[in-house]
Every structure is written in C-alpha cells, then in structure tokens.
C-alpha cells in the first residue's frame, strides 16, 4: 500500500491551541506529520508541514476537515498534494551558515538571494529579523549548500560583491556535523 503526501500551511493570529487544533484533525484522519516547522512571525503563528496518509484523501476533502479549526481560530490553511520524493530532504554536501546584517533598507534579501541563485547556491533555511533601535538593523541568518566544486574563497567573493552593493556586512561559518 502506497503512502500519499501533502504539503500543508497554516497561519493565523497567535493564540494557544493552534497546534493542538491542527494536529487533532490530522490524528483523527490517521495522518502522520513527516516533517514540520512552526514559529511565530510578528504575532502570526505559522505552521508548514509535510504530512502523509495511507488513505488517498482528496485535497478538498482534507481542507473540509479543517473547517472547524479554521473558523474557531481564524486560520488560513492551504494544502496541496506532493510526490513522495518531495517529502524527503536531500543531505547537504557543503553546508555553510551565513549571517548578513546592516542598516535596514529594501532589497537585502533580494540582493543576497539573487547572488546565491545566480551561482547555484541553494538556500536551505532562512530567517530574518528587523531589530528595534535607531536606526533599525536588519539581520538574516541562512543555511546554504554550496554547489560541487565551489570553494570557500569563491563563496566569499560572491558574498563580498553582493554585500558591497547593498552596503551590509556578513560572516560565514562552515557547518560540520560531528558524529560522536
């Protein structure tokens, strides 16, 4: 019997009970949470999940199952079907953690991500934060996977150029996992 996979996103004003309400619907349908991340952005609680089921539910049928949670907690919910191979994460080969920060201005995320995209550098994780204070400072922290054959100095060169253009600072750190 094959498994059926879906990508689910939930967002709504933060209050206690959102995770419980969403996971209750999944539990009652016999649906597993394969992978998920949830966090508070501003005062919006957001959940993104890869879920799987032995039952081939229709997308509309699943969406309907969330009707009560959606209404009670005023949530926006979207759902789509995905293939099995989209449900597993590829191991990064050359993982770096990057911090980019500077005075807030429009285009920091675009400037950096465009430089990465142009050079085949894959963003695996990205968080940004606008700090309080005067002037406000913009901070982004990324996990990126370098393409095969790109060394650290080439990567630094790409970041140097991109950061100079938008007048921000950066630092990089190779992420190595120790198997102990």
């Amino acid at each position, binding site marked *: 019997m094959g498994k059926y996979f879906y990508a689910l996103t939930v967002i709504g004003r933060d209050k206690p009970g959102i995770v419980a309400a969403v996971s209750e619907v999944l539990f009652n349908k016999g649906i597993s949470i394969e992978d998920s991340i949830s966090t508070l952005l501003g005062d919006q609680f957001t959940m993104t999940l890869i879920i799987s089921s032995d039952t081939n539910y229709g997308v509309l049928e699943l969406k309907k199952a969330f009707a009560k949670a959606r209404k009670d907690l005023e949530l926006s919910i979207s759902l789509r079907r995905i293939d099995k191979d989209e449900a597993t994460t590829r191991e990064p080969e050359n993982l770096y953690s990057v911090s980019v920060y500077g005075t807030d201005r429009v285009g920091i995320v675009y400037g950096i991500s465009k430089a990465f995209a142009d050079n085949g550098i894959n963003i695996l994780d990205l968080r940004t934060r606008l700090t309080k204070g005067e002037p406000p400072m913009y901070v982004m*922290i990324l996990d990126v996977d370098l393409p095969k054959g790109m060394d650290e100095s080439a990567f630094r060169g790409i970041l140097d150029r991109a950061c100079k253009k938008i007048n921000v600072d950066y630092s990089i750190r190779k*992420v190595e*996992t*120790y*198997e*102990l």
Partner: protein
Amino acid sequence: MPVRDIVIYPDQRLKTVCDEIRNIDEKTLKVAKDLLETMRYYNHTVGIAAPQIGELVRIIAVDASKNKKGQKINHGELVMINPEILDWSSIIKTREGCLSVPDYTGNVNRARKITVKYWDLDGKEHQFDTEGFEAVVIQHEIDHLDGILFIDRIISKRTDLFRRKNYG
C-alpha cells in the same frame, strides 16, 4: 568479538546513569578493549562511551586526532575511566550527530575549554586541560555516562537569532 554492535535509541540503556568503576578488573579491561576496537572500526567516529556498546559503566574512549578538526589540540587515543569535568569556560556551538541516534543532527552548546580528570587502565590518575574539538568530544561522551543524549541539549534555533538581553 571485539567490535560490538552499537546500541541505538530508544534502547533505554542509553538513558541510564552508568556505574562508577571501583576496580580495574578483567571485565573493565575487556570493556575498554572492545570500546577501542569499536571506535577504530567506525572510521569517522572519534569517541564512544560504554553504554553505546551496552555496558553500563563509566568508561569512554576518545581519539580527536582522527578528525582534521582535532589535529591541533589532542591527547591522542585515550581510554578514560570515571572521567569527570572539573572546570569549564567559554561556550561554542557545534552541530552534533551520534552513532546511537542515526539520521539526526542538532546544534548543541558545549564548553570551549575544559579540565578533565580520569583514571587510565593501570589505575593511574590523570588530569589535563583541552579545548575545541577534543573538549566537545569528551563532553559528548561523558554525557552518555549520565544517560544524556545530544538531543537533550539541543538549543533553540529561534533564540539563535532572537536572543535579546533585557536591559529594562
């Protein structure tokens, strides 16, 4: 058979506080030998603790020199009986994985510098200071002796970026 099977979580032996070694007897020497053999067998492994081979006693084997990160500061291949951290300072964040918890890694805070005390296989007491990679390895392995997995020490990804001191 000197190379032993690795105990994998959820085996509850990994959540057990291990017994202190009171006498270095035949049994202790056998566990130490098997630990070393098992560590050598897993090429990428630079440390292993007795509970990982199913022995609930306070022995670890480490060899930070096996990894390029440990080239500068290491004390070579060591068997440490009743290891104990006497002092520590400074914090580093490492991304750790564990033979006993396959397919999972996480960011963990460790002390950058430690002073560690232990007994060798001849019952002689030793003490040394170390830092960086070797210090991390020793801390990870000593945690195993107390039933602590790296998962128990995972730090919040959110606070990495959002930590803010409150001056109010």
